[in-house]
């Protein structure tokens, strides 16, 4: 048996691949759920009810999808240019911390301050990825290692700041940063739920990112630089400028996720505010085959699993860790599915 590259990836395969991957991941996870002594169909039904079964459930799911869209876009942007940004988690936290710090006492009216704070969060995330990108360009340091390890550095730094200078004196000793000023809290989209304006910002951002990557000369150059750096340089693409630009955009998107989460949901920063949004963003990007529109859909899927698994745990007693298993499995099955979209099997 051998694999041959396909000349073209047909559209129906490109759409079927993530669906097939998700189905395969659910089938594989069903084995584990069965081992826990619960009927898989009952468990998945409970999961769906928990994520989509009521108005509240849907809004909760979309609240969870909001940061995932942005971290997914961050990963997709970087991966398209073959910049392996595994540091979305750290960029998320640094964006969140910067937003809380500046937003706590920013002397601006709300409508002006919100975009300013978003830009601050983006700048923080961009700065965090600019370092590893520079090290790769200048010294060839593998950015997978630097971005991944920086996550731990950033989370420890966040811990230090919220135990120390940025500690919220009103939190009764709870390790939490000072909150952003009430003027900069994002308005709710649906009253009496947590769903906030950030969702629209995230979806609009996906549109802008698509436009930039697919239609601009910069997007074409970034893709060229990722696919074949030597040929791109030969054709006159400036590699350092392009890669640094990609790093700033990617890090900025992950930082924006942190900023929006703080302004929309948590107010202040804790070291547990992200259930792995940065890492899950990688799964989201891969499930979307790095396409910005797909990122939105994939983020909704991952959020459904996360939110639904909690309800499933309550209803059936299956540990909600199964959500992490399903998301991780769908990354693996998606990688296999991608192989089948780009290759055909020959005997």
């Amino acid at each position: 048996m051998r694999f041959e590259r396909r000349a073209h990836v047909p559209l129906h395969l490109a759409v079927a691949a993530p669906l097939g991957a998700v189905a395969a991941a659910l089938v594989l996870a069903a084995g584990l759920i069965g081992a826990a002594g619960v009927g898989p169909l009952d468990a998945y039904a409970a999961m769906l009810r928990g994520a989509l079964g009521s108005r509240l459930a849907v809004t909760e799911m979309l609240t969870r999808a909001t940061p995932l869209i942005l971290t997914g876009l961050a990963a997709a942007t970087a991966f398209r240019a073959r910049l392996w940004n595994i540091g979305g988690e750290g960029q998320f936290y640094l964006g969140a911390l910067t937003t809380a710090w500046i937003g706590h006492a920013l002397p601006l009216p709300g409508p002006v301050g919100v975009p300013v704070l978003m830009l601050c969060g983006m700048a923080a995330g961009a700065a965090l990825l600019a370092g590893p990108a520079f090290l790769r360009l200048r010294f060839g340091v593998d950015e997978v290692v630097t971005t991944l390890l920086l996550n731990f550095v950033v989370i420890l730094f966040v811990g230090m700041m919220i135990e120390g200078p940025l500690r919220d004196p009103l939190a009764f000793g709870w390790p939490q940063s000072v909150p952003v000023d009430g003027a900069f809290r994002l308005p709710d989209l649906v009253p009496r739920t947590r769903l906030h304006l950030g969702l629209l910002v995230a979806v609009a951002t996906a549109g802008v990112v698509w436009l930039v990557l697919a239609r601009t000369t910069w997007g074409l150059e970034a893709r060229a630089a990722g696919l074949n750096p030597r040929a791109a340089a030969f054709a006159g693409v400036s590699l350092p400028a392009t890669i640094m630009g990609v790093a700033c955009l990617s890090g900025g998107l992950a930082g924006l996720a942190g900023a929006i989460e703080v302004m929309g949901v948590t107010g202040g920063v804790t070291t547990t505010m992200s259930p792995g949004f940065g890492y899950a963003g990688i799964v989201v990007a891969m499930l979307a085959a790095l396409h910005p529109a797909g990122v939105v859909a994939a983020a909704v899927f991952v959020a459904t699993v996360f939110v639904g698994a909690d309800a499933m745990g309550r209803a059936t007693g299956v540990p909600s860790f199964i959500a992490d298993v399903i998301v991780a499995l769908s990354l693996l099955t998606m990688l296999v599915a991608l192989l089948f979209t780009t290759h055909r099997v020959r005997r």
Partner: protein
Amino acid sequence: MTEVLALEGITKRFGPIAANEDVTLHLDRGEVLALLGENGAGKTTLMNILFGHYAADAGEVRVMGRPLPPGRPRAAIDAGVGMVHQHFALAANLTVLDNVVLGSESLWRPRSDRTAARARLLDLSDRFGLPVDPDARVARLSVGERQRVEILKALYRDARILILDEPTAVLARPEAARLFETLRGMARGGLSVVFISHKLHEVMAGADRVAVLRGGRKVAERATADTTPAELAELMVGRRVERPVRRGRRPGAPMLVARDVRTDGLDGVSLTIRSGEILGIVGVSGNGQAALGALLSGLSPPRHGTVTLDGRDVTRHGPRDMIRAGAARIPEDRNAEGVIGEMTVWENAVLERLADFSVGGFVRQRTARRHADALIERFDLRGAASGTRTRLLSGGNIQKLIVGRGLTTDPRFLLAAQPTRGLDEGAIAAVHAALLAARDAGAAILLITEELDEALALADRMQAIVKGRLSDPVAARDADAGRLGLMMAGDWDAV
């Protein structure tokens, strides 16, 4: 003579395309057989069937009279077939000895017997005239030396039939000549050799017999003593292909001038190319051609010296500024430097001049596609549409794309580095014709080549490059292969 290898009625289809159709070949002990054909004629497929990489749809392979089970490389190796692929399969971080032994020992043996392996390797290297240092790391070896290691690897596994896929594609001419001497010696020592090639002169020089493949079928078989290059060329292409002929032309004013340029790899290079003139730079690979190409592409600014294009200083110009100043480039390695295989034809066609195909930072896709369509039409890129992924094109069509994208701008200066390396006759003729047309339209062309025939056919003047230095120019009417050979060897006083 005893027959060691027989392929009987081999047919192999990929979908609707027959890569091989009813091909029959025989090989005797001590014989060198050349398999000649254009790219896509089915040579490599046939050898992959013989080696067990593919299973044939019909037909039989016999080694030493015994049929070979289809689709099993292991069986082929055990029967004494050794294959040297075009792209070497060596581990660069291991030593020569490690590479040769790798895979020939059982995994279950507790330790490998290095002393015996070394003795055997040295004995083989001595017997077949393939000098290697067993302890050298492969990463440090030249391509010629790596090829030697590949051949030794096959011999180490007791190969009695050696198959080489385009063995000279990566070699300079003297290295290639040495290789064919070695192969002759091995044949005299009782081995049988099959090599795949599309170069007529090496088939004539290196083989006893030649089988010509065209469109998957064997169209002829000749003893090399009884045929001529012209006959083989016609058999291979199926029609008469004539490379275009350079006509005399009075060159114009100096267009590209380099004065005393020093970079990594160039040591005080000065040259002048006039408008409407082709200057040929000949030399053995690794003597500074890559540095010269990089300099004139704008990739490596010189430490010392100046470069001017049409009177303007372009010494410090990057690739994009060079293009804007009227330069076009055909890079040495078309896949690594010329195109981005995963992108479409239109994207590659406009990548060098994105500014001309964009408005306000957005790509004008429709204009870009129209431009690509025109280029496909004008330069005869067969089987390509503007949306085709470039990787899917043949080497010749990719080269036509690169040449075409450079020439549609009517450049003042064209850098052509190894423009026909690895191309078949039809594509070579097309590229040559395009270069000559650009010259006649007034471009100044720098042709860097290892093929003396190419330099003699195209260039108005020639200079040899040796260790980063250029010889004095020789006019085309004073040049012949012998004189260029001396120049390439660095023997500048003798010429």
